[in-house]
């Protein structure tokens, strides 16, 4: 039990909390964060309750829309924040010449990484908690369940953890904070936006002979925006952009359009996708599951979390190996300096 407590609570965490919360930057970051999310929430809210919010509009649809934009916007903000929190974690200790003082203590290098990460992630959790009151606006309209909100926050946190851990890994690898920060941001933007860009440029082409309906390219599941949109809208996310016909040059999908080719029909934009086959009539398909490909049958969030877990494990192992001043591979235990 005590070892579990020690693993989560190491002196680094307490020190990082103190250092972080005593600067003017943290309250400023929190204020800006809340102001930006509140600003977006207010803009959307006011546009929805205005004259355009007529009897034809469904409150639950508006609620879903508001929720979708808020979670995606929150994720974008986190993408900007998470690398900044961790990219200097190890390199700044090197630059300030404090790292040797830690290495000669009884703290294991792994605990240094873990402590730094936990402290940074706590700040992300704090930001997410600060945004909860703004998210409660959504419940004025309805259309979103509490578990959807919870899932979305957990996905955002998982993505933040991944971006944060990559920041720590770059901080360990590159030694200079500036280089680590640049590398962390490039990677973070690559994961969150670059993967979506890849999906846009190289979408899945619809193949009539395929036994199952097309799914977006697996690379796009790396972007937390995919599972967030899937969870927020209860529908396959952004399929209109990532799944296209072979025969057409321009973008095929418009919001709400239905496309049929042979006996496969697909509707997008409205929220649900129904896939029907000519042989057996309409068969209900789990709308939010990935219909084909590497992660067939998985939920979008499951695919993303699995990919994040893999990235996190690699980043953690790389950092833990690179950090110690004297690196020892477990299978190469001390032979070089042993006496002849």
């Amino acid at each position: 039990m005590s070892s579990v407590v020690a693993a989560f609570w190491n002196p680094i965490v307490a020190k990082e909390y103190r250092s972080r919360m005593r600067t003017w930057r943290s309250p400023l970051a929190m204020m800006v964060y809340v102001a930006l999310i509140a600003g977006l929430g207010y803009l959307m809210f006011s546009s929805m309750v205005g004259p355009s919010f007529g009897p034809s509009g469904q409150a639950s649809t508006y609620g879903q829309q508001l929720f979708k934009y808020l979670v995606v916007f929150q994720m974008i903000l986190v993408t900007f924040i998470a690398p900044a929190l961790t990219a200097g974690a190890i390199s700044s200790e090197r630059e300030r010449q404090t790292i040797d003082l830690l290495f000669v203590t009884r703290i294991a290098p792994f605990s240094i990484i873990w402590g730094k990460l936990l402290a940074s992630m706590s700040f992300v959790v704090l930001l997410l908690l600060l945004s909860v009151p703004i998210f409660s606006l959504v419940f004025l309209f309805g259309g979103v369940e509490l578990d959807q909100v919870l899932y979305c926050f957990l996905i955002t946190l998982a993505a933040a953890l991944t971006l944060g851990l990559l920041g720590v890994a770059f901080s360990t690898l590159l030694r200079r904070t500036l280089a680590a920060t640049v590398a962390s941001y490039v990677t973070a933007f690559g994961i969150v936006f670059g993967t979506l860009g890849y999906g846009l440029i190289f979408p899945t082409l619809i193949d009539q002979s395929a036994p199952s309906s097309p799914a977006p390219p697996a690379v796009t599941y790396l972007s937390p925006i995919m599972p967030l949109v899937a969870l927020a809208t209860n529908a396959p996310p952004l399929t209109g952009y990532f799944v296209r016909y072979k025969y057409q040059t321009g973008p095929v999908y418009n919001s709400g359009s239905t496309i049929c080719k042979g006996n496969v029909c697909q509707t997008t934009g409205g929220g649900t996708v129904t896939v029907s086959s000519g042989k057996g009539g309409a068969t209900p398909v789990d709308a939010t599951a990935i219909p084909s490909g590497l992660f067939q049958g998985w939920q979008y969030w499951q695919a993303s979390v699995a990919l994040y877990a893999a990235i996190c494990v690699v980043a953690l192992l790389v950092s833990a190996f690179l950090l110690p001043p004297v690196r020892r591979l477990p299978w190469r235990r001390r032979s070089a300096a042993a006496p002849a």
Partner: protein
Amino acid sequence: MISAEHLTKVYGKRTALDDVSFEVPEGEIFGFVGPNGAGKTTTLRILAALLEPTSGRASIDGADVARQPHQVHSRIGYMPDFFGVYDQLTVAEYLDFYASCYRQPKQRRRKIVSDLLELIGLTERHDQAVDTLSRGMKQRLCLARALVHDPVVLLLDEPASGLDPRARVEMREILRELRRMGKTIIISSHILPELTELCTMIGIIDHGRMRATGQVQEVIRQLSADRRVRITILGDTDRAVAILEPLAAVRHVEVAGGTIEATYEGDDSTAAGILQALTAEGITVSAFSPVEGGLEEAFMRITSEEAV
């Protein structure tokens, strides 16, 4: 207590340490002297298990630095030559942080911190932010940080570098106190006289090689075959010089401001012979004292041999 056997460290083409060996028994203060870049920091970092030697081995209190780094870390207090402090922490929090890094139980940490602050004379500043301390205070605080887990061995890399004379004296007082506490200490410095009065042992390193090592007096004798004596006389200095110069043991005589400095070869009985020769000729000697500076010159000579 501390042993280094044939330590060699090669960086690419440059050999930073070349077959360095020495022993420091328990309770000794080992002065590690050499010009900048001689390999002092490399040696201390190897002893602190922060650097892997290319070959050779070292141990601290029986723990091998390469194979048992954790045991080494719990036995040593290490103070690097350059170090930073965390901003946003107070002096007491800084020490408490490191005490917890050494897994000192919470109940004991408060006492450890107050005792150490008293030792380094920063008790009144326990609530002050660390980054606002003067350099001398930071240096003392870093020394206190190395002591939070009550180590048996202290590895201090240039603890007095960059300090003003007053801060140097304060640092020396603390080191004396630590010697009284029975710690085995290695102190590195590029200034020899700084160490000779504090240390019991000395090692002189240059270009990665150990030039001389042993008890202070032994090394001094080893280094300086030539000794110097300062003589103050009442009356005619010229006559005294005339008596000194023909003596077989005397190499060189110099007169500066009424005092005579004579360089001679030999030991204490030779010095007594010189004094006797002067008094026998009726010269009134008011002061006759050996000059330690000979060591410094010898040190300069030894460490510049290869550079020339």
